[in-house]
């Protein structure tokens, strides 16, 4: 396959940045999208040019590090996959592919396609945990009975890999799907109930401080999420938030 790539290039945070066009040739349909970018970068290095910076780590859809807004969609045209799981057979010979970084006030561009997603970490730090004393005899979590249905829902929420595609795709750059998955994975379990009120209030507060937008329930996040995190989690967080605001001190 021969393709034309239109890629966002930006030297650093201060640089204004611009879209640049690169041709690539001899791309196999069996390559992943990231391998295709590796081919481009090798070519750029051979030509003595600066390679395109992009995030990646596991390259098997579990770490949440890869990103990229490809042809107008987060993680490209596929469903329930990350960019590293997107194969070039999804494209045709002669296609033009637009590649941009996640765009959100809360995700500043570091370089080219790499953005700083630490805003999501700070939301976690604000309450995405249960406080357990780990010195001495740590109690096995399995000794606390959990209804199977709740355990399944908590696990589904916990499959969120924190990639930020939900923010990137949302027309409001809202982080509600991420935050609600992280609130839900604990709110559904007995261990999480103790700190439930403070958790939801603090995490939502941090989310607002980071400058994410407001959810208007367009549902784009759920469609683009590589892990199929459901909008039910957002409704659960809204419930948790309402009850915490009413009953909390």
């Amino acid at each position: 396959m021969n393709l034309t790539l239109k890629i966002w290039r930006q030297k650093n945070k201060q640089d204004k940045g611009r879209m640049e066009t690169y041709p690539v040739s001899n791309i196999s349909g069996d390559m992943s999208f990231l391998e295709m970018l590796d081919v481009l970068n090798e070519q750029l290095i051979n030509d003595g040019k600066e390679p395109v910076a992009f995030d990646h780590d596991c390259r098997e859809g579990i770490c949440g590090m890869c990103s990229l807004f490809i042809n107008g969609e987060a993680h490209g045209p596929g469903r329930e996959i990350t960019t590293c799981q997107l194969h070039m057979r999804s494209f045709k010979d002669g296609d033009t592919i637009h590649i941009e970084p996640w765009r959100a006030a809360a995700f500043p561009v570091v370089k080219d396609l790499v953005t700083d997603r630490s805003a999501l970490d700070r939301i976690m730090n604000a309450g995405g945990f249960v406080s357990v004393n780990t010195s001495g005899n740590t109690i096995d979590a399995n000794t606390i009975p959990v209804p199977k249905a709740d355990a399944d829902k908590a696990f589904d929420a916990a499959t969120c890999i924190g990639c930020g595609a939900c923010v990137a795709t949302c027309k409001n750059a809202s982080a509600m799907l991420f935050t609600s998955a992280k609130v839900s994975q604990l709110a559904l379990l007995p261990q999480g109930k103790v700190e439930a009120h403070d958790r939801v209030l603090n995490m939502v507060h941090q989310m607002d401080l980071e400058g994410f937008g407001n959810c208007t329930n367009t549902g784009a996040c759920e469609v683009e999420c590589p892990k199929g995190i459901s909008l039910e989690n957002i409704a659960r967080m809204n419930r948790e938030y309402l009850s915490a605001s009413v009953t909390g001190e």
Partner: protein
Amino acid sequence: MALSALFLLIFLLQHFSINLISVFSADAFNEVSHFMGTNPLVQFVMQPILMFAVVFHFVMGFVLEIQNKKARPQKYAYYKGSANASWMSRNMAISGLFILGFLAIHMWDFWFPEMQYKYIAMNPEDPTRYFGELQHKFGDVWRVLVYCITFVFLGLHLMHGFQSAFQSMGANGSRFTPTIKTIGKWYAIVIPAGFIFIALFHALNGANH
């Protein structure tokens, strides 16, 4: 936002029911309108609540819209919104703006004259005047046209808004969410289509008189 929206949904149903009466019986319409226009509970409790809900709803709607625009200062060069969300859900501010524009005309048409008639000119109440006033307004082709276009936008607004309000209130579950979505779709079609029908009915009937 969702609370004011739910209130507006109930109000709209009530408003629709009363308007619908005008199709069947001029006398009954006059009677109900007279009640609504003179009952102190409606006039001095419900009416201020409604006004507050409308103003709150559109002001908050625009505030949210502005904050959301700020949350993405640098736009995408290529953004395929239609790939994952409906037009209705992405353009609530636009459909809302049409409704707001219409509301301004609507207040000018019905509410200001009504306030003038009742509370400023202090006219004695004539319980038979309402139907005639209604029919007179729908005699104007332009007004009917604007009315019909607005209700198409209201339909689009509610096509997303109805179920959205439930989601915002945290009501989402596999048992009842499909039902809410179905009711929402019917509501968003039937109520606006009904308003359009009533307008056309009076426009055409009025022309015969």
